[in-house]
């Protein structure tokens, strides 16, 4: 059936989507690497601070250089959070969420596909609900002006990439649902 022009167009669209979701996850991975660097930098900064103020560096370094990164804690929380959301579409598309397959090991492929379809449906419904609710969550965060404690970063900014990730996860669930429906 993939021989038909319509089928191959669909397949091509799926491939393009898959590539985009992979790149999206890699961007999240890059953010995670940035969190790694912030934490590493903060440790080095704290060590330099002690050396500079009390130890053998004796005030040789400027203050901005030799100090722990203020708010590394918050940057870590927010960075990891955004990164994890960006992983969700990739997880859905690669079916990485753990299942217990053993009881259905002897079931027919058709039944397995039906169970899988049910799982895709739940993922689709939940991610759609979550996207809908977190949109209102973002509006709350903006209206009340929730910020982090030290750097006063506005939480609702973080919701923007997160909502995009959730929208992608909904689409990814649609793709897995279509795959399951074909086999069921």
């Amino acid at each position: 059936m993939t021989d038909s022009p319509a089928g191959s167009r669909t397949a091509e669209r799926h491939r393009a989507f898959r590539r985009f979701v992979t790149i999206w996850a890699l961007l999240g991975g890059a953010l995670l690497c940035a969190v790694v660097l912030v934490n590493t930098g903060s440790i080095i900064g704290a060590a330099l601070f002690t050396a500079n103020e009390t130890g053998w560096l004796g005030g040789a370094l400027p203050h901005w250089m030799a100090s722990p990164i203020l708010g590394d804690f918050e940057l870590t929380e927010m960075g990891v959070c955004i990164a994890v959301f960006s992983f969700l579409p990739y997880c859905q598309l690669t079916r990485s969420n753990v299942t217990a397959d053993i009881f259905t090991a002897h079931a027919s492929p058709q039944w397995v596909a039906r169970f899988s379809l049910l799982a895709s449906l739940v993922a689709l419904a939940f991610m759609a609900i979550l996207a809908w609710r977190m949109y209102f969550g973002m509006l709350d965060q903006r209206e009340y002006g929730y910020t982090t404690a030290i750097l006063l970063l506005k939480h609702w900014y973080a919701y923007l990439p997160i909502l995009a990730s959730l929208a992608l996860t909904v689409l990814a669930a649609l793709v897995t649902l279509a795959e399951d429906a074909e086999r069921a």
Partner: protein
Amino acid sequence: MLDALMIGFAGLGILILLIVIRMPIAYAMILVGGIGVAILSGPAILFSQLKTLAYSQFSNYSLSVVPMFILMGNIATQTGLSRDLFRAANAWIGWLRGGTAMAAIAACAGFGAVCGSSLATASTMGQVALPELRRYRYSGALATGTLAAGGVLGILIPPSVVLVVYAVIVEANIVSMFAAALFPGIIAVIFFILTIGVYVMVRPEAGPKGGASTRGEFLAATLGVLPVLVIFGLVIGGIYGGFFNPTPAGAIGVFLVWLYGIFRRSVSMRSLGEALLATARTTGMIYLIVLGAELLKIFMSRGGVPQAIADWMANSGLAPMTVLVILLIALIFLGCLMDSLSMILLAIPFFWPVLVEINGGDYVPAEMAGFGMSSEDLKIWFGILSLIVVELGLITPPVGMNVFVISAMARDTPMRETFIGVMPFFAAEIVRVAILLAFPAITLWLPHYLSG
């Protein structure tokens, strides 16, 4: 109270049913928890809570160490560090009968010291050690059994993702948990090596001797382990020494492993990308389970379930140790169904209040406590015991993830044989649990020493 227990059992029953029909465990928890809250308190409450719940769970600082350790393990996988470890261990003990399998265990322990996950350890070391074991004509059962069991060391030797999640749930100090895991982890390594020794005594044909190495090979191989020692020393040593908190320590670990890979020219942009995607799959899965478990917890709290179970157990008149053993056995049974992390997230929120209640509350002095130790110590001790029994789930049928991973690599060995091959290791683990139960000091000594 009866109502509450009914709610609890109904929820658990439906959850298991969903898991049996292949629903991803995270979504099974989300479905039961979400619908449960909607039934008990109305959908409006659920919808309001979903506005912020996922954001706050995913931005929990205590959990941020999880992606760090996973990324560290995944980059380590790309670096070829596993090969160095195995070569060194093999140069040391490979000439013994069963020595190559023993070396594989030692190398698993070494890899576990820089990797927070069991599956990553099993698959990485499997790729390196399985061909060698087959080359020396080890039996399929011993070769695959060794590697499936050895993978468990990835999580028994700190750092360990499961321990982090346990610490988050019971609000334990992660550093104390890591410290507590060290001696039991070393005992596990010794027991596994002894198990192989006994195995090849009974069945000499299963594990032949390997070749002895030359002095030059020996020296080169031994020097190859230095990077692992340095990284483990800095990361775990830094945590134990209190020089940094776990998340920055994990970050430094990632940074060092990455540098090592660049230095060895084994980590290109491409392999870094692969490590990141592997991290994305595991991390996304773990965090989704964390969210599901939170929804399930809210449902159970609103139904009054944890309190009811705690009251019920506390009034059962059973001796504290009996209750503890029952809970551990329950975890072993749950382990047949679920992966270790889901199990910790599902069971500990219910089991821990029971133990605190029996012990006499949060602030009970040791001399008046049911277990003869403060609740803080009980938290640490129980954490290590449950860590071991939930990890057993990785090598027990029907769902034994480590066995699946190794089986997928060893196509010529039927999975049944692998399950038979891990049996002796399973027995060794039961002996270890019994010893740790009898002598809590083995677990508690190091955390006590470190906290002064």
